[in-house]
């Protein structure tokens, strides 16, 4: 959160930043369509996994799907939502709550017995 305070505060700095802000160093068409292609391929891969009964039966199925969707999520957020290029403040405003949300989901699943620590020591 201290990100913004380190930023230039003078009117001149603000004006410069506005100019930059209007242009952004946003990626262009060539990046956008590649991202779309990657998203499509990963989605195809996910659905393909779903239709492989031998793979679904392995303990890797769920983690692989989670990693793939986390990858898609990250790519959209980084490139389409421009978080990779934008002000650090936005990264903080988004990742903070996102981490909290993921911890909350995990904690609730533990509490309702949907996840379990399988160390053998705690049961």
């Amino acid at each position, binding site marked *: 959160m201290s990100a913004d305070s380190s*930023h230039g505060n003078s009117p001149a700095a603000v004006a410069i930043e506005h100019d930059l802000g209007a242009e952004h160093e946003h990626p262009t068409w060539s990046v956008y369509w590649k991202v779309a292609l990657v998203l*499509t391929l990963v989605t195809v891969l996910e659905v393909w*996994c779903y239709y492989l009964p031998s793979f679904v039966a392995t303990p890797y199925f*769920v983690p692989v*799907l989670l990693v793939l*969707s986390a990858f898609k999520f990250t790519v959209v957020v980084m490139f389409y939502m421009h978080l990779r290029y934008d002000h650090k403040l936005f990264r903080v405003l988004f990742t903070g709550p996102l981490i909290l949300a993921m911890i909350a989901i995990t904690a609730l699943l533990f509490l309702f017995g949907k996840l379990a620590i399988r160390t053998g020591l705690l049961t």
Partner: protein
Amino acid sequence: MATSALPTLPTADVGHGYTTTGLPHRKVAIWAFIGSECMLFASLISTYLIYKGRSVKGPFPHEPWTDPANGHVFKPILNIPVTSCSTFVLLMSSLAMVLALAAVENRDKPKVSLGDKILGSSRLWLLMTALLGITFLGFQAFEFTSFVHEGLSIRTNLFGSSFFTLTGFHGAHVTAGVIWLLTMLAIDFKRGLGPKDALNVDIMALYWHFVDVVWIAIFTLIYLIK
């Protein structure tokens, strides 16, 4: 102590509309809003996952179910091919959305080739985003009605309640986004969107992409993981 004279603080010569970070208010607010929405969908997704497999009667998402009362066999309810298509549609709408934003931001840049002109048409890409959004909603309407036909309503069991509420909340977000897009499109046709409208389109795009990433999570957690 209270002096009768007011001390004179040093003053800053900043114009109206100055912001500390140099970032526009509305963009800060939309990111805070998106952060808040993370918790909203986290609660909905948690509930769905907590209740997964706890319904005392079917139909179920991934397994067939035989009604003990009349022996009627219900198929697994989720239709992965259809939902994969709608997922693809929503992903492509995000592509259209970034192109619309880029077109608005670069409206004043000269466009030479046909490719430049197509890529630079904010109306085309806004319309495309809205249409893809409407297509997604169409898929969802088809999905909901076919589920109801197959015997799963919001009242049937825990799966029905949590599934329809979660995806319905997401659908409501998409609907709001489509209305937003169509409003922006109307403004574009009325007076044309230029670089000074880029902020408004940017905010709309952030909302739209967020709705998209929520669907990415829902697609995996609800549809694909058995």
